[in-house]
Structure formats: C-alpha cells, structure tokens
C-alpha cells in the first residue's frame, strides 16, 4: 500500500520536464479553444508551441554532458548533448515567430473591420 505513491512521486521527480511539457501543452490547447479573445488564442498557440520546444530540449538533455561544440584543439572528449533537437527547435522557433506575425497582422485587420477582438461579438456582427 505504501509503495504506490512513493513510486509515483519518484516517477514525477525524474520526469518533471515531460510532465511540464504535458501541462503547458494542454494549457495552450485549452486557451486556444476556450478563450473568446483572438489575441489570447494566439498567446495560447505560442504556449502550445513553446511546450513542444521544451519537449525537444529536455529530450536532448544529458546530465553532466557538455555543450555540443567540439573544441578546435584537443578534439572531442567526454559526453556531449545531442545537437539535433536544438537545431530542430531553432528552426521551429523561426516558424513560430513568423506564424505569430501573420496571426497578429490578421488580427489588426479584423480589429479595424469589426472594432472588437471578442469572437462572439464578431460572429454576431458578421452574421448580420
């Protein structure tokens, strides 16, 4: 009876990065679905994407390993963190920033057209 909760705490303590990923991921998704404010939806989208970046970074992390830069003198020694997920995240961040820019540009146009950022109000205005 005692072992089960201990096991779970242990499980979370070693995998807290993945747990954080799951919580942020779900929070971002919920914001996108539930918030009627368009800007907050975009913020939710950013949170959602950042969670994925964290996931990739925590996946590449090796305790006690060095940054993946091989010194010019002396050659490679010891353990290195995998550079591939870092490169992936770098690219994904660029994609995310451009998407946010396009989204905000669209929101500016929607605001100038409808005068509000509330989804329900816009739907009422648009249906008329």
């Amino acid at each position, binding site marked *: 009876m005692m072992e089960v909760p201990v096991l779970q705490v242990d499980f979370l303590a070693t995998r807290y990065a993945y747990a954080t990923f799951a919580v942020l991921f779900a929070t971002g998704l919920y914001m996108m679905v539930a918030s009627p404010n368009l800007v907050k939806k975009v913020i939710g989208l950013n949170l959602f994407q950042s969670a*994925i970046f964290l996931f990739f970074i925590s996946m590449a992390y090796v305790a006690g390993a060095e940054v993946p830069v091989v010194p010019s003198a002396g050659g490679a020694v010891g353990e290195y963190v995998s550079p591939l997920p870092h490169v992936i995240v770098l690219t994904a961040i660029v994609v995310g920033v451009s998407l946010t820019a396009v989204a905000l540009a669209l929101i500016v146009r929607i605001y100038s057209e409808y005068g509000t950022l509330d989804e329900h109000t816009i739907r009422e205005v648009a249906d008329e």
Partner: protein
Amino acid sequence: MSNLELPLLVAVPIVAATLPLLFGLKFDEVGWPVALLATLVETGLAARVVGRVYAGERYFHQLGGYDRQYGIELAADGLSAGVVALIAVVALLVLGFARRAGPRRNSFYSAYLLLLAGLMGVSLTGDVFNLFVFLEITGLATYALVAADRSGRAALAALKYLILGTAGASLYLVGVGYLLLATGTLNMAELAGTLGSEVAYTDPMVVASFGFVAVGLSVKAAVFPLHTWMPDAYAESPDTVTAYISGLASTVGAYALARLIYSVYTVEFFAAVPLAQRAFVAAATLSVVAGSVLAVTQSEVKRMLAYSSVAQFGLVVAAFGLATEQAVLGGAIHLVGHGLMKSGLFLAVGVLGLAHGTRDVGGYANLGYRSPVTVAALGVLLLGLVGVPPSIGFLGKWYIAWGAVEAGAPVVAGVVLFSTLLTLLYAARLLETLYFRPADDAEPAGPSPTADGAVRSDGGDASADPDADPSVSVGMVAVTALVAALTVALGFAGPAFETLLAPFMEVFL
C-alpha cells in the same frame, strides 16, 4: 551533383518569390510575368521528374552532399511524381486565370510562388522534420493568400485556418519528436529500416507518434471532425486563391499522410497494430459520409464544393488506410484527379461569379445559355466529381471501391457508392438549375448582379468585344475548358498511372 532537378524544383520558386517585391520597387504589375516564368520552369522540371520516374527510376538528391543520416534528402518516386505534376499544372493554369481575375499586387505573386515552393518541398522531401518546415511554409503562404482581398471576413477565415493549421502541424511535430526519441533519426528511409527491426512497432512511443502524426496531418487534409477551417477558407478567399489552394493545399496534406504511412511506418505497422488501421479507416469513412451530407445542405456554391472536398479527401485517406495495392492506386489517382477537378470547378465558379455576380445556387438559374462554354466545363467537371466514366473521378473511385472489396472492407465499398449517390444529388441540383430552371423562377441572388453584369457573355461568344468586358477574358474560359478536357483525357490514363506507381507499390506494399 546529379539529380539537380529535385532541389531546383524547390529553390526556383523560393528565389523567384523575392523578385516581385524587389522589382516592385521600380515597376508596377511585374508579379505576373515573374510568376509565369517561374511556373513554366517548374513545369519543365516536373515533366523531367515524371519522365524519369515513369521510366522506372526512383531517385534521390542529398542536399549539400551530406550523407542522408546527417543531411536532408530529396526523393522522387511514383507517388511524389504524380503530385509534383499536379502542382505544376494547376499552378500554371490558375496563373492563366489570375492574369485577368486575380489580385494584381506584387506581394500576391510573392505569396503565390512561396506556396508553390512549399508544396513542391512537401512532395519531394525525404526527411520528416523537413516535411514539417515545408508544411509550415505552405501554411504561411496559404494563410496570407486566403486574406488576399483584404476583407474582414477573409481575415477571420484566414485566422481560423492559421490557428487550426498550426495546431495540426505542431501535433505532427510532437509525433516527429517521439519518432526521433525512439529511433534517433529523421530520414524516412532510415526510419523505415529502424522501425520494426531495432524498435518494435508496438513500442508505445511508436504508436503514440503515429497517433500524433495521423491527427496532425488529418487537420491539413481536412478529415471530418478536423475540417472546420476548410469551408470558411474556401468560401471567403478570392476566386483565384480558392482554385489554387483547393486543388493543392489539402492535397499535399493527404500526400504527406500517405508518405508517412508507407515510407516511415510501412504496412507492417498496420499489421502489428491493427487498431491504428481500423481507427484510421473508420475516421476517413465517417468523413466521406459527413462531408457528402453537409455538401448537400449548402446553398452557396463555393461552400458546397468545400464540403464536397471533405468527402473526397475522406475517400483518399480511407484508400491509403486500406493499404491494398488497388486501394493505394485508387487513392493516388483520386488525389491527383480530385485536385485537378476541384481547381477546375472553382475556376468555373469564379468565371460565373465575375460574369453574373452570383455564387449562390439560386442565382445560377438558366446560366447554361448565357455562358455556354463555362457551364459546359462546369458540367463535365461535376460529372467527373460524381464519378461518371470516362473521367479521372471514375477511375479513382473505381480502384478505391475495388481495393475496399479486396481488403475485405465492404463498409468502405458501400460508403464509396453512397457518397457517389450524394455527390450526384448536389451535382444534379446544380446542373438542373444551370440548364433547366427559367431565370424568373430563381430565388433572388444574395448580392445583386451589376446592371451590365447580368447580360455579359462569357467570351465563348466570339462576337463579344473583349475590351467591353473587363471582368471575364477568353483566357479564363479557355483555362476552365482545358481543365475539363484534361479531366476527361486522364480518365483513359489508368495504365499510365499503374506504370508510374508500380515501383512505389513494389517497394512499399
């Protein structure tokens, strides 16, 4: 540096996309000629790729000369060659339409070329992360294009598409993360080798990655519960853009899904995890029924055709899920055929909209005699969509139904037939309105046609003075008719498709 046409197919439109903006500083309306030049080059390159693949070759290009374990690989086989050819042809034809109808701003043509680059990249890449990047390039350009007419409604549709599309692509990225975690590689060929031998198909990480990838790409391909962005995006965007993205944007989404299933997870994954296959086919089948029913209830033509796309992509995805030789062949043919037919249909709707100021079924009354050529093309394309032989629509559905029977999935075969009947229902309603309902009986159209717009001929009438008719040109009608003719001509191309896809089948099935 052999096989240079593969990187050029992606690089040419990206470089060309910068030119309209650059020249735009000095000249006006330079976008269209630049886009035409780039698209012609693309068509030539695509023809070369199709020719080489048709000869039985399956070839690669390693970018920058890096080995495929470290670098990015571009690959062409039967499936990608078909999609590359579709992209090049539709881009060229829609550009012909855009000369008169389209937005003339230089920035529009930059986005047009950027989308072309993204689409080509998705079809040719052999790297799962690179696929994500190209999907997002495709997405970014599409969001910008949907909002190209600067109205509030279009901006709203584009934002909806952006949020859903990005969520889909992000889910796909999580799937890629799980794959990388399980196998340590991103190259499709390497992944296919590692999965099943070094990592079991039933590994929870692999199954989870399939779930994320399938759901993420289903958003892009507009499979039923994830399709909600599509009707708004198609209905609110300008006609040129609708014709362009309806034929291509979701098509490459469905293509990516097929590519991932066959080149990465392979059919053995389906054999090892039968639940994944069953859920996949069930979702696609539901999509066929729901899309068809929703399409029948629409009164706006563009919205109706958008819901019909949901059904047709359901058919394609179901075919890929069934994973028998005939079904995959049918899926590939229907993917290409549907892209061509949908583009043609939206072009015809665009011509009628410009000539008569209506996009409503009610407003279409008796137009068959005012715009004979366009409406005839529209009729041919609608019958092709229903699946009347000889047309590519029939060919695709025939192979899918055959494959469904072969795979022992009578429900899917029944749904193909049922959706055909529903397609006939809305196609026939449109045709009946176009040819047999007198204009007086028509319900009043939403936007009232302009005074002179109502009596405009569509250019099929040779005596019409082209200058007196600024909105519809002979070229626009000719392009629409050409698509209709192609749809019928490709109906006889069954053996050619079989030859093209035979090496693909051999490797992956």
